[in-house]
């Protein structure tokens, strides 16, 4: 009997003897993270754990409305486009930092300047330096932000990357000033942080009303790092943990079958696909430079079965390298249905009736990539899997050594195709098609704020990419959450769980 089966059987048998989940009585939600939070400052980490924490503790000028896809005021009561590259933000009144001090326009300007300053070494700076020209205080409540050129993702970047910091927070320019003690503006304030033991947060009484974020229904939230899923499972069953995310599909399903745990699944913005050496960087005469070969590979992979049996949850097959709900992705493109016969015909037509061999470098979900290789083997193509660490893949990619590589792109939870541009624009080592038209369309779409024009450009680009089978799109990821039955939780549309929206049943 497996450990999991033993666990399930024993717990179901003894569930009536289990103690009542205790956390509701002291109004404390315990969330288990698979990885540790290594800094409280979200400007210096892009881990999913830090994004969840930052959502609770930091606010930006604007937030995305997940239902409409529009950007709505957060710290800013409203915003106005002055021209194609300038936005005025008007701050709400009565905003406070967690230490009780008011949020001022100087703080907003400081935040922009700090993040954009290369010497501040934030993990967010690289995203805004490309367009940011400056931020100035217009009056007591208005901040003007200007881009160097028209840039359509300006609001996105401000909503995702420009977290508000109190002016002078980084004393003497020290980037680590907020690593251990943090002063933010979010609906929860940090009361303790012990690296390894986790973070404790309490509802912030001074949080502004009427904003897009929920104020929080639970008084205290504890974020506990528990690296082993078996231990998380045991804690959920014994009442030591109320919520966890990123749970492996089989574990989540087993847990969801238990009376004291709910399993919720939602989509992730992350998509998985193979990048093929279309341009012949590794071999100018290589088989992947042949369009018919690439189309054959696309026909050979059974995406539906991979999603059904290996991805699970809310995962779905894709035929474009984008999240189906995002701006720019709503285009009808050539879809290569699973058809091994057609794939063999295409291979023969391309001059490879007996197939060929190539190296497929991967770094995630080995079982899934084995399934892809098995599908390709069915049509006579041998994909030798070279499963490595991401850093090794990045190094080989930068050196132009990869015939085909796996990628899983998360779009920074941004509902806009522009967030994946580096697979399509010129000069990026992730772009292995080198199609000047596609490169030009993506570049142009990043230089105009006219959404209709952008949509048209993306449609042209995605159509060409699919027709030429430059890539081998696979699936959109699923995100599994488990939580105790005494809590309510809804899977977010963008894959970023908001713990302040959890409440007791």
């Amino acid at each position, binding site marked *: 009997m497996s450990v999991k089966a033993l666990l399930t059987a024993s717990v179901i048998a003894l569930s009536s003897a289990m103690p009542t989940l205790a956390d509701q009585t002291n109004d404390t939600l315990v969330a288990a993270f698979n990885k540790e939070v290594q800094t409280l400052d979200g400007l210096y980490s892009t881990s999913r754990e830090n994004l969840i924490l930052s959502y609770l503790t930091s606010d930006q000028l604007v937030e995305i409305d997940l239902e409409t896809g529009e950007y709505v005021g957060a710290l800013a009561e409203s915003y106005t486009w002055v021209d194609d590259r300038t936005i005025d933000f008007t701050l709400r009144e009565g905003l406070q930092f967690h230490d009780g001090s008011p949020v001022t326009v100087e703080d907003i300007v400081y935040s922009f300047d700090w993040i954009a300053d290369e010497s501040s070494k934030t993990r967010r700076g690289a995203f805004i330096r490309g367009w940011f020209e400056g931020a100035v205080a217009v009056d007591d409540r208005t901040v003007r932000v200007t881009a160097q050129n028209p840039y359509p993702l300006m609001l996105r970047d401000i909503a995702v990357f420009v977290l508000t910091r109190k002016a002078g927070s980084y004393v003497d320019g020290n980037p680590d000033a907020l*690593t251990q003690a943090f002063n933010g503006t979010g609906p929860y304030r940090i009361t303790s942080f012990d*690296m390894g033991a986790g973070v404790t947060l309490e509802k912030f009484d001074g949080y502004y009303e009427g904003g897009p974020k929920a104020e929080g229904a639970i008084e205290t939230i504890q974020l506990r790092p528990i690296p082993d899923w078996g*231990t998380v499972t045991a804690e959920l069953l014994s009442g030591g943990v109320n919520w966890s995310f990123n749970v492996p599909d089989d574990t989540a399903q087993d847990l969801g079958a238990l009376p004291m745990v709910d399993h919720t699944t939602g989509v992730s913005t992350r998509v998985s696909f193979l990048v093929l050496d279309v341009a012949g960087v590794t071999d100018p005469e290589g088989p992947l430079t042949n369009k018919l070969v690439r189309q054959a590979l696309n026909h050979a992979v059974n995406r539906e079965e991979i999603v059904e049996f290996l991805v699970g949850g809310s995962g779905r097959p894709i035929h474009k390298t984008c999240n189906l709900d995002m701006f720019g992705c709503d285009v009808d493109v050539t879809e290569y249905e699973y058809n091994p016969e057609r794939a063999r015909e295409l291979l023969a037509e391309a001059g490879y009736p007996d197939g060929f061999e190539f190296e497929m470098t991967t770094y995630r979900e080995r079982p899934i990539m084995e399934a892809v290789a098995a599908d390709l083997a069915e049509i006579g193509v041998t994909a030798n899997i070279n499963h490595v660490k991401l850093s*090794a893949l990045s190094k080989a990619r*930068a050196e132009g050594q990869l015939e085909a590589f796996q990628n899983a792109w998360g779009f920074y939870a941004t509902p806009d195709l522009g967030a994946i541009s*580096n697979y399509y624009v010129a000069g990026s080592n992730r772009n292995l098609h080198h199609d000047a038209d596609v490169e030009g369309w993506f570049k142009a779409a990043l230089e105009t704020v006219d959404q209709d024009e952008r949509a048209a450009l993306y449609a042209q680009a995605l159509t060409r990419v699919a027709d030429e089978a430059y890539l081998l799109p696979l699936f959109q990821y699923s995100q599994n959450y488990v939580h105790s039955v005494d809590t309510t939780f809804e899977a977010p549309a963008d894959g970023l769980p908001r713990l302040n929206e959890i409440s007791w049943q």
Partner: protein
Amino acid sequence: MLKFILKRLALGLAVAFTVSLATFLLLNLAADPAAMVAGEDATQDAIEQIRVQFGFDRPLYVRFFEWLGNLMTGDFGDSYYWKQPVFDLLIDRAPVTLTLAAGALTVTVVVGLTLGVLAALKPNGWLDRFALSFGTAAQAIPNFWLGLILIILLGVMFPILPVSGDTSWKHFVLPCLVLGTSSVPQVLRLTRTGMIEVLGSDYIRTARAKGFRPRQILFRHALRNALLPVVSVITIQIGYKLGGSVITETVFALNGLGRLAYESILGADVPTVQMLVFFFALIFIVLSILGDILNAWLDPRMRVE
């Protein structure tokens, strides 16, 4: 003797240097540390910025000797991942690992010695067979599996002990049992073998003939002699307990050096991983040198070798 000690120290230093160099090369050559630090969705610009920011663009030998030079002056460097001096990280996490190691060693010694002695009293008796079966099982069961089973039994089905964490002594009971059990077989078998040999020796027979009480014979005469090889094994086990706690700390979410190593490896935190490997290697080197010196002190022939 002094010459012998100096030779062993020099050898230890050479081993420490080699371990450091090998670790450094493996960490830096196998992958792009800048890409690892930048994360999965990082742009090429972000990766390049990190490469310059953390000095990954400089030649390997420059970075290695800089690290070595800093180490000599007590500067362990700063962690990329944890945003703290590595020294502070080690100091913060060491108490948990030391507590775990001490508890596990206690389990190993108490259970191993007790079962070993009991088994030797009547070889091939039911107690002996039980002890040997227990030893075989303890050796065969992986730590993570035993950990999960104990969690299910004592944390979930009969919730008398906490499942994970390290905020009270209760949190250490299960991990100490798991980590300690894995070393019981070595101590048990050595004790059993030593005791059987000693109990069958002439001087024990003489002691019995002189009318000493069995307890006196067992503890005052037999056990003291049988323990000599066991002590050497226990010394090495201290190193294993300190360095081998990665899985146990991970399963029980203990905030110690083992888990620090696990998370740092996942986060490609070169300075922390480098220092931890060096630290664990140093423990084994020091214990080996102490063992050599002890043996040389006990047996002068070894000094000549």
